[in-house]
C-alpha cells in the first residue's frame, strides 16, 4: 500500500485507484491535479480533499446533498469534457458533489455552493464547476446562528 503525507492525519495509506484527478486543477491551484478524499466516520460530515503532492494543501469540504438537498447542477461544455462525460451526470448516482468549506478564524464557517467540486465516480475525474447562472452563494453559512454559547 502506498502512503502519503497529509495535513491533519500524518502519513495515510492510499490505493492508487482512489486518486482523484482534476485535469484543470482548481481556481487558485491550477497546477494541483491529484487529490485523495479522506473520509472518516469520526469526522462526519466533513470530508477532506487532500492534495497528493502538497501535504499542506487540504480543503475541508461538506457534501452538498447535506447542505442543500435539492441542489441543481448544470455543467458547462468545458467541465463536461474535463469530467469525461458526454451528458449532464446524475447527481448522487455517478457523481459526488462537495462544497469547499472556509473556516476564517474571525468569521463564521461558510461553504462554497457557487462552485461545487464535482467528482465522477467512474472516470475518477473531477472539476470545480462554477455555477455562473445560479443563485447559490460562494459563502453559504454552514451553521445556523449558534444557540446559547456554552460557558467554558
Amino acid at each position, binding site marked *: 500500500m502506498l502512503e502519503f503525507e497529509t495535513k*491533519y492525519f500524518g502519513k495515510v495509506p492510499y490505493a492508487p485507484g482512489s486518486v482523484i484527478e482534476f485535469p484543470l486543477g*482548481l*481556481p*487558485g*491551484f491550477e497546477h494541483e491535479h491529484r487529490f485523495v478524499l479522506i473520509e472518516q466516520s469520526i*469526522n*462526519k*460530515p*466533513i470530508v477532506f480533499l487532500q492534495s497528493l503532492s502538497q501535504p*499542506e*494543501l*487540504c*480543503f*475541508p469540504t*461538506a457534501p452538498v446533498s447535506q447542505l442543500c438537498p435539492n441542489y441543481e447542477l448544470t455543467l458547462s461544455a468545458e467541465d463536461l469534457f474535463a469530467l469525461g462525460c458526454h451528458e449532464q451526470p446524475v447527481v448522487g448516482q455517478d457523481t459526488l458533489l462537495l462544497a*469547499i*468549506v*472556509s*473556516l*476564517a*478564524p474571525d468569521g463564521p*464557517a461558510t461553504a*462554497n455552493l*457557487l*462552485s461545487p467540486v464535482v467528482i465522477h465516480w467512474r472516470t475518477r475525474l473531477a472539476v*470545480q464547476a*462554477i*455555477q*455562473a*447562472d445560479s443563485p447559490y452563494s*460562494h*459563502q453559504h453559512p*454552514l*451553521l445556523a446562528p*449558534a444557540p446559547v454559547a456554552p460557558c467554558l
Partner: protein
Amino acid sequence: MLVIRRRAGQSVLIGDNVEIEVIEVSPGRVKLGITAPREVLVLRKEINLTREQNLIAARGVSPSAVLKLMERMRPDPPA
C-alpha cells in the same frame, strides 16, 4: 461607478484597445461581446470569487478549529 445606458448593438470603449458590445438584451440577462488584446485577462467575476474562496479555505486552519466545526455540524450532538 460610471453608469451608462446602452441598447443592443451599441458599444462601450475602454482605453484604446478594449471594446464591449451589447449583443443581446433579454429579461434577466445580457449577452456581451468583448474585443480585447490577447494580454488583457477577461474573467467572469465568479471565477475570481471562487479563487479567493479557495485560497481562504486552503489557508492554515488549526486542527482544533476543524474538530470544533465537525462537532457542531453533527446531526445528533451528544446530550
